[in-house]
């Protein structure tokens, strides 16, 4: 078993645990923005896509990498945008402008 795997597993378990503790505190009120925000964060795979596309090892890997850059970056941009739009709508009675 490669040592990289062990260290990645280590990070995975700790991050999953942190995620669990943090996310269970999110109010059900915000479950839709939660999902769009985690989608945007998940779009960080764009960094792997950039590397695969930019290394230009084979034509295939470059083409697949470029598709991946487009798909994940659209998620990143769209995910943050819609999350912020949704959160702006959540107002209390006091802060509500009439």
């Amino acid at each position, binding site marked *: 078993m490669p040592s990289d795997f062990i260290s990645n597993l280590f*990070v995975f378990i700790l991050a999953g645990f942190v995620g669990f503790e943090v996310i269970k505190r999110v109010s059900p009120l915000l479950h839709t923005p939660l999902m769009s925000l*985690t989608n945007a964060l998940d779009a960080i795979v764009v960094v792997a896509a950039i590397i695969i596309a930019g290394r230009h090892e084979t034509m295939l*890997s470059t083409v*697949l990498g470029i598709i*991946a850059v487009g798909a994940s970056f659209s998620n990143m941009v*769209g995910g943050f945008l819609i999350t912020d739009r949704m959160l702006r709508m959540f107002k*209390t009675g006091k802060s509500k402008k009439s």
Partner: protein
Amino acid sequence: MTGLSPQQLIDLTYIVAAVLFILSLKWLSSPVTARHGVLAGEIGAALAVGATLFNPELVQYRWIVIALIIGAGIGVPLGMVHMTAVPQRTALSHAFGALSATMIGIAEYYVRAPQVTKFGMVEIGLEVIIGSLTFTGSLIAAGKLQEILPQRPITYRGQNIVSLSVLGTAVVLALILVIHPAYMKLFPAMVGVALFFGVLLVTPIGGADMPTVISLLNSYAGLSAALLGFVLNSKVLVVAGALDGSSGFILSVIMCKAMNRSFTNVLFGAFGQEQVAAAGHVEARPVHSATADEAAAILAAANKVVIVPGYGMAVAQAQHKVRELYDALTKRGIDVKFGIHPVAGRMPGHMNVLLAEADIPYDKLLDMDVVNGEFPQTDVALVIGANDVTNPAARNETGSPIYGMPILDVDKARTVMVIKRSMSPGFAGIDNPLYYLDRTLMLFGDAKAFVGDIVRELGGTHQ
């Protein structure tokens, strides 16, 4: 200490990004700090992407820049969709995320193959299978939510066996590739079978189960990103994927509990099946119905009103009329709150977003547990487009298919009013005893039009 290499600097930036991602989710715990959370996430993502562009291994930039521009060009309109379209947008973004992770996994395979280590092949195989099934599954879910595909569950005999054998085939192909890395031709077959399994997984699932499915696909999308992190040995992907995966997992568990489904039931995708056998006896019993002016008179005489919205409100686009009703009643000094069931709508939190969009203050939107304590002191419970989540059979009829499902106890209010198109049963095909109670008044009609009529009767039309 000697200077840092460019790669080390990039890795340090990734650590900062990972910390910002965790803070981003932490700040989402309250609506007050939530927007800081988005900012933290944006900064983290920008840092990570910016640092990656300095990776010394990159030899070409032109196509990356073009892809980033195209991605932003797709992302902006997807970020600007109307709030009623958020469920399908979310499903589509699960599909994009999974597509991206799958493409990278496939690219990595062909760069390495046939010199793939056994362990590397296990990781790639798992990553590509989960990514592929999430991609097609999410596309089907988006199609159902957009109503391009039928929302009703499409089922046939022996479905689970067929679906599981398809998944099994994909796993077997992956295992052959692990043992015999030279059989490279099997790799596209494995991808194809996994893509097909995604279609089989989601096709049988009906519209009302979408909150669970969307959460589950969310979890799978996160898992595929984390697995990609294992394949590429990229910790920032492992962290982001683990966060996304655990978020989807928690939401799936919440949705399951709210529908009284077991978690294994969901994990194996065997849901959306029970309701086929669920068609209960529908007998013609008398109901009390009322007109808009009668309903308005009862509401005007109340001190405390709880409105229970469901998917029907979203379909009828009635949320802005509901807001007018809220204003008209509040102006008369009536206490108006909203009772929100976790699975109301087509995704977790769907109703909250629609009502917030209609400018209803979020402190009036109460969770099921909180609002259930308030129904006994409530004068009028007004149900708009919700059915099964208010069905008292879930509480006391042990034979009912939804027995044990937590519901909103609207029947404990002094008067119940239900806006409904007709007496047709809800998604689960079960008759709702709530409608035959003496204290229940049925308001037959389109949700938007009927609420509008009530508002007019109250003399509180928009100023």
